Every structure is written in structure tokens, then in C-alpha cells.
């Protein structure tokens, strides 16, 4: 009988499209987001034909400006460029595509910093309570910063910085962290974007809470024991397989293992590529684990700073 991880990996391998990518569901056209997640899940062994086909598709979707398109039908740079950059780091491919991707991410910023937006916020500060001077990353160029794309961009830039930090990257990471910290909800987690609108506190969501904490990567201003206990509570309570997968990934990053559930309580088998991939990606090996305050993490098994594949620097692009 296959283990849960083996079952997920088998399902992912079987769902690869002829073009080398993955759709959000088996049999659907390939998109960048599920393709990168599937490749991260299947990144070992690194010489598999499936990985090579996926890398070829990802490489073909790079745009001249440094971003990656979302899918064949969309010829615009997409937020999942963050994921493509992370994939390069995981595979140890620090080529010109990687450099352009990092530059694209470093230059990308939310629209809340624009003068007119800041004026509007100054006039009506209680409409949406946030600090417009600290900008994260948007889902789409020209729009405001939100939690999930900011978390993904931080993960990507942190992986990139692990091989030699540049001042621009470090500055952008610091600003993105401040944005996440500033948008934390009163209940200790993160909503999809804001903490307080029109005088009302917003509730946190499990998936964005997990992603924000992963993006903050052991930031010293977080009481990590409390935060991870909160994550574990959310993990036990949520019925969303995707939220549970991200919460477990967060616990894996900081505690070195995913929480376990009796088989009867587990999510049923899924054909959702995102859920299947996020459930089995080895986030503890992917994330470099910089700045982790180990003494602050109860029961932690801190991830090491080695990137898988880091001995393959200089290999050809995906």
C-alpha cells in the first residue's frame, strides 16, 4: 500500500500534461502556478524526464521583461514569477533567467505607495487602516499589495539571497517583512490583505496566516511559540484541504515535521494539483532558514541553510 506521500507523488506524476506542465486539475491546460508546485514536489531525483519536460515549459514561458506568463493563453507577467524564481533556486539554476526574475521581483511593488493613493489614505485613514509607506507585492501590476503574493515573493527573494545577498534584494525583503508585520490581524493571524476596514477588525484566514509566517522566516518580532501554536490550532480546526496543507507546510518549516492525523480524519484523496503538491513539498529543505531564532521555537528542528541542489550551480536553465 502506498504511503500518503507516495500516493500524492504518483498522482502528480500521472497528471503531467504533454507540454510538460500541470493544470490546476488533471487534464486541464497547464498553468505556471500548479506546474511549479508540482515540479517542487517532484524535484528529486533531479535528473528525471518529468522534471526536464516541466523545466522546458517553464523556460519557454519567461517573458523578455523578466517575469513569467501565467499560462499559454496569457501573455502578461504573473505573480507566480515568485514561484519560478524559487524553483530556480531549488534546482540550483542561477542563470540569466534567474537573475531577470529576481530583478523583476525586486522592482515589483504595490500601488498603495502611489502619491494619489497615499493622499486618499491620508484623507480617510480609517477606511482601510494600513501604512502605505511599506509596500509588499501585488497579485497583478498596478494593484495593491496583498499577503499571499508578498509571502511568495519573500520566499523567492530569500532563497535568491542565500547565494549572495544584494543590497536591493535585502532592502526589498526588509520592506516586505514590515508590510506583513504591519498587516497582522488583532487575532494574531493574517487576513488576505488588511487587518481593519471601516473601523471593523478583519478575521485571519488559515492559509494566509501560514503563508505570512513562512514569508517572515523566523522574524525576531514574532513570538514564534505562540504563533506556531496558533497555526496548529488552525490546522486542527480548518476543513479546507488547501489551508491545512499550507498550515502543515508552515509547521514543517519551523518544527521540521508535518503534524500527523489519524487516517480517518485526513482529507480525502484529491485531484487538486495545488493541494497534492503543497502537501508533499519539502519546504524545510527549500527554505534556507536564515535568521531563525532557534531558542524561540518550541520543539523545533530548524531547517538547515543548504538548498537542495546547491551543488549544481551553473547548470543550464529550466
Amino acid at each position, binding site marked *: 500500500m502506498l504511503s500518503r506521500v507516495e500516493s500524492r507523488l504518483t498522482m502528480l506524476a500521472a497528471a503531467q500534461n504533454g507540454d510538460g506542465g500541470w493544470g490546476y486539475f488533471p487534464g486541464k*491546460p497547464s*498553468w505556471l502556478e500548479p506546474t511549479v508546485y508540482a515540479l517542487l514536489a517532484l524535484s528529486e531525483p533531479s535528473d528525471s524526464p518529468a522534471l526536464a519536460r516541466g523545466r522546458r515549459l517553464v523556460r519557454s514561458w519567461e517573458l523578455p521583461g523578466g517575469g513569467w506568463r*501565467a499560462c499559454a493563453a496569457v501573455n502578461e507577467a504573473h505573480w507566480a514569477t515568485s514561484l519560478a524564481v524559487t524553483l530556480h533556486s531549488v534546482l540550483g539554476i542561477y542563470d540569466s533567467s534567474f537573475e531577470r526574475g529576481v530583478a523583476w521581483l525586486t522592482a515589483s511593488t504595490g500601488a498603495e505607495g502611489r502619491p494619489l493613493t497615499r493622499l486618499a489614505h491620508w484623507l*480617510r485613514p480609517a477606511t482601510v487602516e494600513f501604512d502605505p509607506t511599506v509596500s509588499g507585492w501585488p497579485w*497583478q501590476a498596478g494593484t495593491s499589495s496583498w499577503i499571499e503574493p508578498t509571502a511568495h515573493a519573500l520566499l523567492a527573494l530569500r532563497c535568491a539571497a542565500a547565494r549572495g545577498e544584494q543590497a536591493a534584494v535585502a532592502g526589498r525583503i526588509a520592506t516586505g517583512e514590515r508590510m506583513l508585520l504591519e498587516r497582522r490581524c488583532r487575532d494574531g493571524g493574517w487576513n*488576505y490583505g488588511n487587518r481593519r*476596514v471601516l473601523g471593523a477588525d478583519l478575521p485571519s484566514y488559515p*492559509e494566509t496566516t501560514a503563508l505570512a509566517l513562512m514569508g517572515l522566516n523566523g522574524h525576531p518580532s514574532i513570538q514564534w511559540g505562540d504563533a506556531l501554536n496558533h497555526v496548529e490550532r488552525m490546522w486542527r480546526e480548518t476543513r479546507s484541504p488547501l489551508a491545512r496543507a499550507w498550515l502543515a507546510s508552515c509547521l514543517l518549516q519551523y518544527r521540521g515535521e508535518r503534524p500527523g492525523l489519524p487516517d480517518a480524519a485526513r482529507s480525502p484523496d484529491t485531484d487538486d494539483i495545488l493541494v497534492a503538491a503543497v502537501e508533499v513539498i519539502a519546504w524545510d529543505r527549500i527554505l534556507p532558514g536564515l535568521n531563525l531564532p532557534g531558542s524561540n521555537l518550541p520543539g523545533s528542528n530548524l531547517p538547515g541553510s543548504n538548498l537542495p541542489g546547491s551543488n549544481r550551480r551553473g547548470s543550464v536553465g529550466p
Partner: protein
Amino acid sequence: MMARRGFLQTALGAAASGTVACQQPSLGPGPRGRAAVAILRAASYGEDLLDRLQRGAAACGLDARGKRVLLKPNLVEFVPGAPIHTEAALLAAAVELFERLGAREITIGEGPGHRRDAWYLAEAAGYRAAIPRFEARFVDLNRDDVARVAGFADTGGIYLPRTALAADLVVSVARMKTHHWAGATLSMKNLFGVVPGALYGWPKNHLHQVGIGRSAAELYRIFPRSFAIVDGIVGMEGNGPIQGHARPCGVVVMGADLAAVDATCCRIMGIDPEKIEYLRLASSLGHVRDERIEQRGEAIAQVRTPFALMPEFQYVRLA
């Protein structure tokens, strides 16, 4: 110093608000003829909702025979006990209605605006339990295949899910709610849920950047083959569409002209539809003026239930 800054903020803020309230887009004449809108009483979700929908469909002359129908509920988010989403009982009745009307294919599609796990939301909202063959019918529109549609306000175009674009009839099965940015959210604003989050994110901030009113009107223009069923059995008032309070209203409102349906809902809610920006912007596509809407079933006056409004929207209160 702080007092001066506060005065400046208050004065300029008030001026900006006044400008917004006064500089509404002009109200269009609407298309030719009149629009039929049916108002059906339903005191609770335990009543025979299929009967209500059948009567409403007949009153509006709804013809779905042989059509590929997309039912688009409002499932922007789920909070237990909160009247945020279209109730499962009404959505299930809508599926049965279109089966009886002879629709060739009935798909349920939604792209939730705040949470990514649409299947979980559908489960939590009771859709899986209430609707036969739900798994085979449901499409997560946030992650569907997309095609570009030229022209969307002044942005050049927008990508939309192929499931929605291929439908012969898009049925907006919305919930009657006030909205803290738009004044009200009804069948037209519910079309935001067809915009794919995989491209535009959670939330679909692009639509806010374009303008909520403009985006709602543009989506209505893109989906002219549409029909509206608004769940006003229990609506939401105050800080909608998520954090407001339940407001029992005891009606279902139906019609083929989404602007006319929403205008009727507004009048039931005690809101002047001619002061709602998205309805003014859509007023060349559908009917907003009272005299151009033929009410069938109950009269508005018999079911009027004023909804509480946020302070910022007191100016839309129907005189």
C-alpha cells in the same frame, strides 16, 4: 498642529465625499420597452422554493430549453451562520428549476473573491449535500481555462473563464446585501465572481482599481445573456458584504434584466437605485427607472424592508 491637520483631513475628506456623491454618472434612458421583474414571497428557506422559482420564471417568460446554463451563486466567503453566501436550499431549487425548464446542461460556477479553496467553501455552505451530482456540476471559476475578451472599461480587455463565456445563459443567483463600497451588492456585482482569481488574485483588486461600478457594468455588458435570481429571504444589512447583520426580508426577486432586478431589490431595501453608481453606469444596458420596470408578483410596497446603511451611504436612502 494636530488640530490643524485634523481639520484639513476632515474638510478635504468631506469635500471628496461630497464630490463623489454629487458627481454621479448620468442615468441612461435604458433599452427599448419595459423589463419584467418578479417578486415572490418566501418567509424561510424551508418553504417550497422550487414553486416560487417556477412562478417567477413563468412571470418573466424565462426560456431555458436546450441551453447551457451556468448558475453563479454568491460564495465570496463562508462564515457559519452569517448571511454572506447564497443559501444552498435556493441554489438547489434553481438547479431543479432549470432541469424542469429543459436546460441542456447545468453547471454551477463560482470564483470566490477572498478564499482560494472554492471546493471547501462549497462544502461548508452545504452545496455538496443539497445538490445532487454537485461534484460533476461545479467549476472553480478562479482556476478555469481562460480566454481574453477585448474591451473592459479603458483597460483594453479582460481574461474570463471559458465556462462562463461558453454558457448560453449565465444565471446570477445572488444574495441581497448592502455593500460598504458600492452601497448594494445584488445580481450584477455578483458577476465579480466569474473573474479568474488565478490571474487577478484574492481579492480581485483589479476590479477595484478599474472601479467597482464600472467593473460591474462592464461584466453585465459582456454577459448579456443573463438572468437574475436574488436571495432576499434573509439578506444582509449594514457593513456588508461580509460583516453586516442578517436582515430577514422574505422575498426572491427574479428577472432577465439584471439592472431592473437590482433596481427593484434596492427599492425593496429602501435604497434609491438611481443613486447607486453601478446601476447608473449600467442604465443604458438595462432598466433602472421605476416607470420602465413592470413588477410582477408582489408589489414593492408590500414587501419593502429598509436595510440599515453604513454612514457613508446614508445619501442613497430612498426618500
